């Protein structure tokens, strides 16, 4: 249904535009400015064209970080989304236990990122951490600050622990909206549990699931705080994801130009993927309507 067309409404949007201008566009333009200039200090800049972009595009270091990033995002999404769906399906539909489950499930979401990092940093330490010590005591060679595999596993487990809840909550909301008549009809049709999932629950969850996937993609692709606190990007560069690398480049090495070019490209990649997600999502909605 079309709403009233009222051109004056644009004035209402103006404050937001100004605010967004100050908070997002202007800083972004600064970055754009840096990305096409070089400086030898003294606030003297000279244009270098697209040199920085070319450098970043051919930088092996960035390629490696991108590879790690893609691998990380793929792994955590491959775990969190099915796991989230599974947990949502197992949760009680109503009653006191439904509320209890919801509260427990949401707890990890309420903890600040750096605290999550700190918790896991201590929790997984082999000397004083409950988890780390136990695993080491079981005779498994585990040390996240020395061993690449251990570091990866710890970060992935940490992310799954922190974010699966989000997927669970969204899926649970999707499931709750399915009228009971559908389950009744499935019983009458003698549909198997798998068929109920495949033909009733999954189609009805599709919308929220795409939102969940989008959110998880964006968040995990930009992940910084938790691995930074936990491993600092180590051992070596084993857990240096794109954001961590960017910060190292910009602040650690003060390569402002390349860092600016890098961050612009980083931004565009996320924007592109999100846009693809959004288009797919709205097409699915259209089909439904």
């Amino acid at each position, binding site marked *: 249904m079309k709403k009233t067309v009222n051109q004056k409404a644009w004035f209402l949007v103006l404050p937001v535009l100004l605010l967004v201008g100050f908070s997002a566009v202007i800083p972004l333009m600064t970055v754009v400015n840096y990305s096409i200039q070089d400086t030898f200090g003294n606030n003297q800049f000279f244009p270098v064209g697209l040199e920085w972009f070319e450098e970043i595009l051919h930088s092996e270091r960035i390629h490696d970080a991108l590879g790690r990033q893609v691998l990380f995002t793929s792994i955590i999404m491959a775990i969190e989304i099915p796991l989230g769906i599974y947990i949502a399906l197992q949760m009680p539909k109503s009653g006191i236990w439904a509320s209890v489950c919801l509260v427990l499930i949401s707890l990890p979401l309420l903890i600040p990122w750096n605290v999550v990092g700190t918790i896991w940093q201590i929790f997984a330490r082999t000397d004083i951490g409950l988890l780390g010590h136990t695993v080491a005591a079981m005779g498994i060679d585990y040390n996240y600050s020395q061993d690449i595999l251990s570091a990866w596993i710890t970060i992935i487990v940490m992310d799954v622990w922190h974010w699966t809840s989000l997927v669970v909550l969204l899926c649970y909301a999707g499931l709750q909206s399915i009228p009971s008549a559908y389950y009744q009809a499935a019983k*009458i049709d003698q549909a198997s549990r798998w068929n109920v999932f495949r033909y009733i629950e999954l189609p009805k969850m599709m919308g929220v699931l795409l939102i969940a996937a989008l959110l998880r993609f964006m968040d995990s692709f930009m992940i910084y705080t938790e691995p930074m606190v936990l491993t600092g990007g180590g051992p070596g560069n084993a857990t240096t994801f794109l954001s961590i690398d960017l910060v190292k480049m910009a602040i650690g090495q003060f390569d402002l130009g390349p860092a600016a070019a890098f961050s612009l490209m980083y931004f565009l990649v996320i924007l592109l993927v999100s846009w693809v997600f959004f288009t797919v999502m709205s097409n699915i909605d259209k089909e439904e309507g």
Partner: protein
Amino acid sequence: MARITLSKLAHSYVKDPKSDKDYALRELNHEWEDGAAYALLGPSGCGKSTLLNIISGIVTPSHGRILFDDIDVTFEDTTDRNIAQVFQFPVVYDTMTVQQNLEFPLKNRGKDAKYIAQRVASIARSIQVEDILHKKARGLSADQKQKISLGRGMVREDVNAILFDEPLTVIDPHMKWELRTQLKALHKELKHTMIFVTHDQTEALTFADKVVVMNVGEVVQIGTPQELFEKPAHTFVGYFIGSPGMNILDVEISGNQAKLFDANVELTQNYSGLKGKLELGIRPEFMTLCEEGQGIKIEITRIEDVAHHKIVRARYDNKDINIIVQEDVVITKTMNNMTFDMSKVNIYENSWLVEGEKI
């Protein structure tokens, strides 16, 4: 297909029901004949949905038993009862095509492909969806979706019963005719036991061989549409069936003489030993308007032209009376008296029908 027996069946949502009020469904003994079409008719909250849910197995009754043929299924799950159900809102599998929707119940039961193809083709022809068989169910209109729900209910030949829970609620009037006729034709063809729950008298009467009228958790009357129309067992049935319902008027009776609105009328039957509150019931269809001096004088308040007849809204003292007049009758100013067909009069004692003796 099966005969369904309800034996001392009652249901209460309260733990220890004490009075009748605590029962959503009061004690009921009834046998649903194999292959007949029934309607469960009543206002919302009358217990008709509870009864349907007990038959389908969603609700386990707190008292009594339910049998399919001679097998006790009181505690059996819906899946094991081998019934079909069509819901108020269309329940279709959105991501499947129409054909896959119709095949689904049969595939799940491991029927062979040839049988499935032949069955689906025949149902698709019956419900007239052959031209959309390969479309996704998602994009269809409400009435097309409801057709598919009906089709999925009909596709199994061996179901014990097909239950309909107000399936025409979301359908436009002109489509109701089509769906109802298709349903009726399918019933004649396939002879399934069908139970149709509704609050709409037209749906109930036109669909069913026998209508079960319910009110506040109780079955008030079970009968053919004609019986319900001509001999309502309770004033509620008289009121609920017919549009407008039966006129229920206070009356004093001795023998075959009745005193109605200060006028004396002669009944066709003799009544004796009546003690409770007496009422006379007469359908608007059996009343006529006539000239002054030919009947009981009434005050006409409004005449409604309703398609092929007119409803005359009238008053006597403070009592509303409805009279139905045929389309071709011209109502003049002087037509302000009413008479009625005495052979169609029913007498009620404490709201229940009483029969007199033939004179």
